[in-house]
């Protein structure tokens, strides 16, 4: 296996992009990444495209050749491969692309992540995304994704004395960070009081505990590190790419308050690199729900199990903290186009590690972690990234 580097990144604005089509946003992100990597379309060996539910949202399946076609690449006859893993589709697509380059099967590959969600009404968005849970044993009984995360939240409160306002702070942090991100779906700051008094979705979670449905696309160009200097002065090495799975339904987990998929993927990534959680100063974690951000802190090893609540009470996790979370604004503020999320997290971290994140820049970071989940944690994908000097 050879070292793999990110050579170029691209991303659209996230939000309600009603005037733009799926193929338009996919191509915008892809060409940005390709241009930045100073590569031509003919250099690419493959496209890996993360997407959760284009069939349900757009009545369109078979989208990898669609994007290749409208990117003008049909005459090159590249392999285009769609990857689906619920909300983790983007990071799992990145994992496939990483393996393709690391193994030597391809030199340069494109990773895309795209979702167009807001063309359908909100109740349908909820039904489509909740299909990442178990349709036969959860949603049929009235469960939705936010309801299942609420069950995790309530049990966490019961077992560890976590307070409702502890995880609400994740959303306040996300909007604070997102206010500096021109690509973010939401750029307004919010207060703890606003989160606590927002309309209830599934108690204890309210509207401001839940990331929005968004439209958006993100893309990365990967290549072998040994060739990276030809294309960029600041290659970012993918030090680890790990995916782990767990039971699809929350009810079957060993412990509903611990996401074992996160724990296992993180353990594998730390073992591969020799890194420790306490040495990581920058992370993009999956805050689709405020409580999922809290769980990530614990399950990634940043704080002890059960200490997520008190950590959010006592620390800022902002730019001044020893660990900065979600400088992009996370899923909550930057937005949540399902299949694009895991790719967009890495776009943000690459810009941070290059020192190109402008107003959002976390000073002096050389290593970073991204954490992307599907469903209630049946899939977890973790990437460790490092600036190479």
């Amino acid at each position, binding site marked *: 296996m050879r070292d793999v580097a990110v050579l170029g990144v691209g991303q659209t604005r996230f939000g309600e992009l009603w005037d733009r089509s799926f193929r338009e946003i996919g191509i915008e992100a892809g060409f940005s990444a390709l241009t930045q990597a100073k590569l031509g379309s003919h250099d690419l060996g493959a496209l890996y495209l993360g997407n959760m539910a284009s069939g349900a949202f757009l009545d369109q399946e078979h989208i990898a050749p669609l994007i290749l076609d409208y990117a003008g690449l049909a005459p090159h006859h590249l392999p285009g491969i769609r990857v689906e893993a619920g909300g983790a589709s983007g990071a799992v697509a990145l994992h496939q692309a990483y393996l393709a380059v690391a193994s030597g099967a391809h030199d340069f590959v494109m990773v895309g992540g795209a979702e167009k969600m807001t063309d359908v009404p909100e109740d349908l968005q909820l039904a489509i995304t909740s299909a990442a849970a178990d349709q036969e044993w959860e949603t049929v009984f*009235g469960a*939705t994704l936010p309801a299942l995360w609420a069950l*995790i939240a309530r049990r966490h409160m019961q077992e560890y004395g976590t307070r409702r306002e502890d995880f609400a702070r994740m959303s306040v942090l996300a909007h604070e960070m997102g206010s500096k991100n021109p690509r973010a779906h939401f750029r307004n700051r919010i207060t703890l009081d606003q989160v606590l008094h927002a309309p209830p979705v599934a108690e204890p979670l309210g509207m401001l505990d839940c990331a929005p449905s968004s439209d958006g696309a993100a893309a990365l160009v990967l290549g072998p590190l040994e060739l990276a200097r030809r294309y960029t002065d600041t290659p970012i090495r993918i030090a680890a790419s790990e995916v782990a799975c767990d039971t699809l339904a929350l009810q079957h987990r060993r412990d509903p308050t611990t996401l074992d998929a996160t724990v296992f993927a993180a353990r594998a990534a730390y073992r591969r690199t020799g890194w420790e959680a306490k040495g990581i100063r920058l992370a993009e974690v999956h805050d689709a729900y405020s409580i999922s951000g809290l769980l990530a802190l614990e399950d990634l090893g940043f704080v002890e199990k059960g200490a997520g609540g008190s950590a959010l009470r006592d620390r800022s996790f902002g730019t001044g903290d020893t660990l900065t979370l979600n400088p992009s604004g996370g899923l909550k503020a930057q937005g949540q186009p399902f299949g694009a999320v895991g790719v967009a997290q890495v776009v943000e971290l690459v810009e941070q590690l290059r020192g190109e994140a402008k107003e959002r820049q976390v000073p002096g970071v050389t290593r970073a972690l991204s954490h992307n989940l599907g469903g209630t944690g049946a899939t977890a994908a973790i990437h460790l990234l490092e600036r190479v000097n």
Partner: protein
Amino acid sequence: MTIARFWRETPQRYNLGGSRCSSCGSAFFPPRAVCPTCPEHRRSLGKMEPLQLSGEGEVYSFTVVHDPAEGFEMQVPYVLALVKTPEGPILTGQVVDVLPAEVHVGLRVQATFRKLREEGKSGVIHYGYKFAVAREEGREPVAPEGESVPEPRREGPRPART
């Protein structure tokens, strides 16, 4: 959900039929063909035995849902819970015939047979289990208007008129 997809799982959703591994004794609901807890789980193929859940349990976690799942719009707000059964498995289901404010972790409940949802005015009606407060909690179960409350049966819930 299509008729065949729902119909296939009828024995479990109506009668709480699970399975138990004859090697390690682990209990599962819904039934599994392979035991995930046996070290040599491949050997458990064909050795899973039927297990009848009693329908008893206690609330392990719960939420009051205001933004409903598809087909549950008329039931808002409703209580959804993880219910831990004495046999081992945890089930996901609604807790009904109780005020949301009266539900708490540890509340003892009993499975009851109810209508879950219908697919539009002319679509398929889905039936299955929900949970009512157990009688030993000191409350009489309340039937929906115009319906009688079936006697609880130890061997599991039986279809009631809905």
